């Protein structure tokens, strides 16, 4: 970076002379000139820095980053939300079934009290039911993981959303039009190769395209082929 305007020693000497002569008016004018010179130099340096920053941003915000910001980051959020909802659903099913099993265990306990069983047999069955209830309680308690993992995932979703907003802002400020970022170019060969390796559950709106919705759809499709 060049420094186009240097402080002239003569200006400083003139300022000193004015101060020594107690010429405040002249000294103020000379000092203002010096300050203005300094400020102008600062603005020029800032201008160079800003240009450099724009250049760096242009290099940084390549096509890949634009596509990732527009397409991949929202998909990450969608995938995490799928994890949140599917684990919650699975936990709920487990809790409902465990609670039903606990009620059944209670009913068995009441029924055997009226059954014609020896005291030893009654005690043995009650002991087994007690062990069964302990296991069922363990199943109930182990579902508490959903609360903890859910909280962690919610925070990750918030962080990713915040990161997404920052990137969108950065993209806009660097002069790109976020809304005009195109869709990813679809390469059929790459897509086919990925599908043959396995792409996992189709949980995003985009990946649900051309997917079957249920086992019945699979059976219909295979049925048409005689399987």
């Amino acid at each position, binding site marked *: 970076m060049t420094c186009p305007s240097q402080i002239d020693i003569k200006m400083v000497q003139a300022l000193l002379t004015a101060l020594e002569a107690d010429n405040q008016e002249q000294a103020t004018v000379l000092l203002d000139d010096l300050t203005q010179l300094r400020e102008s130099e600062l603005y020029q340096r800032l201008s160079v820095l800003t240009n450099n920053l724009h250049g760096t941003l242009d290099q940084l915000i390549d096509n890949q980053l634009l596509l990732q910001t527009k397409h991949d980051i929202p998909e990450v959020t969608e995938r995490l939300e799928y994890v949140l909802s599917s684990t919650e659903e699975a936990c709920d099913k487990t809790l409902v079934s465990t609670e039903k099993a606990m009620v059944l265990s209670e009913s068995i306990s009441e029924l055997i009290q009226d059954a014609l069983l020896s005291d030893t047999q009654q005690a043995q069955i009650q002991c087994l039911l007690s062990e069964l209830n302990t296991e069922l309680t363990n199943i109930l308690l182990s579902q508490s993981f959903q609360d903890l993992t859910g909280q962690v995932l919610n925070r990750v979703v918030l962080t990713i959303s915040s990161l997404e907003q920052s990137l969108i802002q950065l993209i806009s400020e660097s002069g790109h039009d976020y809304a005009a970022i195109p869709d990813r170019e679809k390469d059929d060969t790459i897509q086919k190769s990925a599908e*043959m390796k396995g792409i996992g*559950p189709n949980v995003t709106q985009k990946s649900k395209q051309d997917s079957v919705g249920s086992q019945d759809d699979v059976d219909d*499709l295979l049925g048409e082929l005689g399987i």
Partner: protein
Amino acid sequence: MQMNRDMNILVVDDFSTMRRIVKNLLKELGFHKFDEADDGATAWPMVQTGKYDFIVSDWNMPDMTGLDLLKHVRADANLQNTPFLLITAEAKRSQILEAAQAGVDGYIVKPFTAATLNGKIHKIFERVAEREKG
């Protein structure tokens, strides 16, 4: 080949949880002889021993996919008639058609129910029996 509750079944999935679930469901259906593999590459040498009467496999696994395992089985003259069931999260129509083309006997999408597994196993062995009758 008739459905025999004593048959040897190989369960292939990279997630141990899913192997346990499948094994427990198969136990509920009366089967009791299982081996496990965590990947197609681990499963293939086991399958080559000729021990297995039925293979239940996931699709998406790190070293060798279930689809590739199926293709290996179908390409081997000694093993090609082994009933093969895919249980997978892969649900694109193109993938299901590819599996059908490779010779899969049944295709179950995850998540699935015990009733679906039971129904598919029965259908597979009905078809196998019909095929053997000629």
